């Protein structure tokens, strides 16, 4: 399924709220959502020293690679991954075949708790992203690119 191509204010706020809630409910360090192409969509938690762009890309690369393995094994996808480190653990969950939900946590939480909260959140996020995608595809929607002229594009490169 396609990743969303347009993000609107309303859904953006909703998704952010879901991330914030999961972050606190799961006792996580960091929660973030990235689309399958590696674009970060929302994040919550201890983000100060975090290179979110890099993490998002590597998460998407990882999911792409596991997806490739899945199709070689005639599986549709491996929807959950868990990586255990000495201090930090990562739980990765594909949501509605579209986007990826990542929870980073330490000993303040547990795999059981994270799993439980992620499962509940998945349902909620699937609903939001389904709505988002059909909204973006609905005919009346105006893309901000409509107003961009060839001249604007030209100007971007005049330096």
């Amino acid at each position, binding site marked *: 399924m396609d990743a969303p191509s347009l993000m609107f*204010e309303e859904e953006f706020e909703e998704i952010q709220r879901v991330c914030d809630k999961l972050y606190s409910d799961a006792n996580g360090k960091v929660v973030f959502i990235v689309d399958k192409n590696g674009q970060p969509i929302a994040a919550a938690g201890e983000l100060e020293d975090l290179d979110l762009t890099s993490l998002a890309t*590597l998460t998407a*690369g990882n999911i*792409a690679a596991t997806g490739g393995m899945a199709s070689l094994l005639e599986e549709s996808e491996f929807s959950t991954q868990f990586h255990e480190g000495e201090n930090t653990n990562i739980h990765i969950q594909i949501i509605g075949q579209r986007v990826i939900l990542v929870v980073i946590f330490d000993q303040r939480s547990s795999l059981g708790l994270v799993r439980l909260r992620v499962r509940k959140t998945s349902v909620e996020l699937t609903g939001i992203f389904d709505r988002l995608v059909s909204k973006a595809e609905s005919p009346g929607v105006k*893309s*901000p690119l409509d107003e961009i002229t*060839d001249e604007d*594009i030209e100007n971007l*490169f005049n330096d």
Partner: protein
Amino acid sequence: MSFINIASREINCKIVYYGPGLCGKTTNLQYIYGHTNPDAKGKMISLATETDRTLFFDFLPLSLGEIRGFKTRFHLYTVPGQVFYNASRKLILKGVDGVVFVVDSQIDRLEANIESVENLKENLNEQGYDLDRIPYIIQYNKRDLTHLASIEELHELLNHRSVPEFEAVATMGIGVFETLKAIAKLVFLELKKSHR
């Protein structure tokens, strides 16, 4: 596929550098990384073998300024050129908005270039893209070396569509930013067209 975030006012696009093994894809990104303002770039990630061959991809996030109040962000990727990494190349092409084909201009790499274009075409087709329509730029790299194929010959063999083409010496940065600007521009023009 481009991603437009109306809430955070960002436009995100994905550009992939393609081409045969050792043609200079990673070198292009390294040069861009080394010569871009620190606040316009993120970290460059290279998933490489111990001998510095690309194993999965290189990644470089870049900001190219604002258009009508929207920040433009480009995600540059390279694929691994070695023939046996084809499964990885397919994955990297997912969601691509524009392709730069980096040609190794040396005569003894002619065959490898042609095979790589064929491979690009096939891999794009599998994802439902068409090399004859996607934003596409060709860069003739390694022009500093001897035993080179002429530009005319390379054009004849590799640029059937007559897309914009640039001569380059990626190690010295010649042609690198010209190539990047050209593909970014094509991607924007296409984005504008397809969102109409």
